[in-house]
């Protein structure tokens, strides 16, 4: 496969899932688009040098989201209107509303676990924290969801 075909395939294949991943982390479509585009394109020229491109890009998106979100938080001082894209059924909306109110790292850990299905060790690598912290973040996030959704 020629280099141009490889890159075109790379971009075509990964853009949509990258946006979705970033959207679940941020709750913002606009932010997700920017993060996905910037991260994918930044990675393109370095693919051959990476031992584990999926893990690297995953962490890069998480990091870029965290960086962008911090800047936004410092400007706006609060989070509003997350996961407002499209129409979802009421049960999903309930979960989304709670997810939107979770601390960012709890939300990130939950997305990595329950959307990407990653084990604690890979979540820890992605978030650059101990596995104990991952367990804590997921546990606290689920506790909050249970409490606010009235789940046992």
């Amino acid at each position: 496969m020629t280099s141009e075909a490889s890159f075109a395939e790379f971009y075509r294949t990964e853009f949509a899932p990258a946006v979705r991943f970033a959207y679940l982390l941020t709750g913002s479509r606009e932010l997700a688009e920017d993060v996905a585009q910037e991260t994918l394109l930044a990675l393109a020229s370095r693919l051959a040098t990476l031992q584990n491109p999926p893990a690297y890009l995953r962490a890069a998106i998480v990091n870029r989201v965290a960086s962008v979100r911090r800047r936004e938080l410092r400007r706006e001082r609060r989070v509003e209107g997350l996961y407002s894209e499209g129409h979802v059924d009421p049960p999903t909306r309930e979960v989304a509303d709670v997810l939107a109110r979770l601390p960012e790292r709890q939300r990130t850990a939950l997305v990595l676990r329950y959307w990407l299905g990653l084990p604690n060790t890979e979540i820890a690598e992605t978030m650059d924290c101990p596995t104990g912290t991952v367990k804590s973040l997921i546990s606290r996030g689920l506790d909050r969801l249970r409490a606010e959704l009235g789940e046992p």
Partner: protein
Amino acid sequence: MTTIEERVTDALARLAEQLDVAGVDPLAAMPPSRSPAPSRHPGRAWWPFVAAAAAIVAVVGGLVALSGRDRPGSAVPATLPSGGSSTLPGSPDWAVAAADLGRRLPAIPGDTAGLQVGLGEDVLARFVEPTSAERASGATGPCLHIELEGVVDGATCSIVGPTGLLAITTDSDARYVAVAVNSVVTLGANGCDLVIGTSGDARIGACRVPATRDGVELSFGAPDGAHRLVIGGFPPASATVASTPEPGPDGAMTLPSASGMHVQWATNEPPGAGADQRRYATSGPQPETATYIRLTSYVNGAPADHDPGCMLGDESVTSETLADGAAVCLAPRGESEPFGRLAMNRWPDTILLEGNATDAELLAAADAVAADPVGGGFDIDATGLPAGVALTGTGASVSDFASSAADPTASSMASVSWSDQAGRSMFYVATPDDESFLPNLRLGFTAVTDTTVRGVPAFVRTLAEQPGYLGVVWREDGRTFQVGSQGLTLDELLGLVEQLRPATAADWSDMTDAATRATAPMVVSTTTIVTTTRPTG
């Protein structure tokens, strides 16, 4: 019965699936047979690519895709030479790189109508947009024209044609300007200096293709390497180059390629968000040897009506209640551990108190925390401080491990991150702090050891919970350099520090350019502050 885990899994899948991503993908206009299949769980199918690919190819691919709907005809230029890169003086802030494919382009202010691309005095392309009235009328829809008058042969920097017009219809002009601009560069600017500037009114009307012009179909030969141009930079970048290298930004440093380290990112802004920090310690050159408390406050992101809980990131914290009834949490520690941590939330901030202090001292300090109406952030009233301890430094974090008394939002702070093939990394930030602030940078680390680097006094910092971390701090040319590293031995770190040399403007441009091609920065997060430091001895 549905568990909470199942419900979260289902909700995340639904939220992701209902997002119509195709509508925002610059490549989505490609033929259907080349469109990606949606993936519900990208983590398992992502990035099966190991071959490097030049971003420039995607630029052209994107342009071809974009042009497909409105391309007026065909006049295929000859295959163009590949390789090479342009080295342009000018402000990096105004540079557009090939890797900017699809990005919104904040670098072009205002109306792009009249912007043109040129080589020397020759105009190669003009960018034409509809007027606001035309947009409002909806008669033509938003569109962007690229009036292509010349294509550059990268080998000779000469114009080889063809002429024509490429019309692109889009509902997101700015981002496509980047694609369009880069397409011109792609067509053969290898090593040539291209510039964009404004000159006259190049309007030819919205979304109309003049019948007198031939259409252009783009072809490309997959050139590799960096291609970029400077916007708004007349006189052309090919103008005089000074014989004496222009110095880079204050504090900008570079490493020789022989070091084996590659730039991951380079910026003249603080890499971190700047959590407010205050240090309360004893006076003297080694305050870390006595009682001290470091106060850090940052916005935790939780809405006002929701308690984010303990932000220490530890499963076994203990909860306490302050005199005013507010809840705080304390990190567990052994009896011999002098370093303690306490966290409390005061919307919208989380406040961390850390340092060589007993839990009782931390609680007393927490009772005395009050918002600082003058300086912002929070302060500990003197009545809540241990005996002999007083405020010694006010500032902000500028990364996980670096701090500054300077306003991080108003100060230039060169910072660079490098890594090698083995994943080892080194990072630094140069802050404009006075020497008097230096003792504050010894606080919050497991061990601090005095040494000498680059012929000046320095100290090495370590963190118990991050055994791969090593840091070193010194002052040079009026700036404080705070270096951190992961995976390097002390000898390796100090060896790299000795190899640092001031970057010229050209060096810095290359570094920032390389950074745009590297992946995202190793983010230095205010949130990770809560998990980084717990000295054991």
